[in-house]
């Protein structure tokens, strides 16, 4: 059980933060391209899900999984998107992603006057607290599963 990596996007598609913990295979394209690809995919899936839903939509797109990994998605009303890739043994982690938004992003980035909104986060404090938090999660183990 492990966490592979984490992306944080704002409402305009700017990648605010990216960290990885266990990633055996890279995408083979430069990082900028990778962020655009991820954001574009999320944008398309969200609108697809709401159009094609056979019932009234409640939460919208939550996660997708393949035979090797699961991608979890959380979006706030202000358009901040938290995306986490974990392995398959992990269940719904909406509250974890919500905590990353409220207790880490809002507290340490929004309230930091030296972190301009809409740009990649430079704050060391945010980076280290996020790392500590993810490593302390029950489904994160130091050895990749």
């Amino acid at each position: 059980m492990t966490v592979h990596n984490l992306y944080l996007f704002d409402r305009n598609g700017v990648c605010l933060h990216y960290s990885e913990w266990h990633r055996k295979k890279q995408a083979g394209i430069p990082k900028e391209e990778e962020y655009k690809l991820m954001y574009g995919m999320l944008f398309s899936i969200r609108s697809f899900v709401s159009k094609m839903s056979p019932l009234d939509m409640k939460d919208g797109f939550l996660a997708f999984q393949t035979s090797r990994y699961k991608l979890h998605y959380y979006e706030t009303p202000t358009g901040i998107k938290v995306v986490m890739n974990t392995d398959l043994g992990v269940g719904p982690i909406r509250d974890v992603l919500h905590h990353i938004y409220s207790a880490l992003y809002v507290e340490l980035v929004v309230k930091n006057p030296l972190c301009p909104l809409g740009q990649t986060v430079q704050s060391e404090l945010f980076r280290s607290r996020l790392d500590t938090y993810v490593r302390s999660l029950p489904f994160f183990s130091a050895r990749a599963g």
Partner: protein
Amino acid sequence: MADEALFLLLHNEVVSGVYKSAEQGEVENGRCITKLENMGFRVGQGLIERFTKDTARFKDELDIMKFICKDFWTTVFKKQIDNLRTNHQGIYVLQDNKFRLLTQMSAGKQYLEHASKYLAFTCGLIRGGLSNLGIKSIVTAEVSSMPACKFQVMIQKL
């Protein structure tokens, strides 16, 4: 007191507003820091008037400093000053190990050069509070590792 986030965000905007509207050369010669300190001075004067309306008169200078460290700091920042030192000759050093306006910024050395901008208002706050209690002083602040900082108060004997 209202939610802390309100004052924190407003204070951050005040600091960046003062710096944005600074004219040529004002940033270097410290005019911006002075403007922020004067704002804090006026606010401190008003606040102390409000907080002490029901307390008894203070015995001496040390008593006033203790009031600033305990009650005044608690009402404004929801915690007390962690350490008060004095040389009994008019110099007091107030140490706050987790200053509320700096905790979100960094935990160490990052952004250290910008820290003084965010302490100027609070220096004025202390100076204004003391002035309305009858003490003329000079207040400076220093920070070596966020979020801990020290406020130095020099009492001016008239």
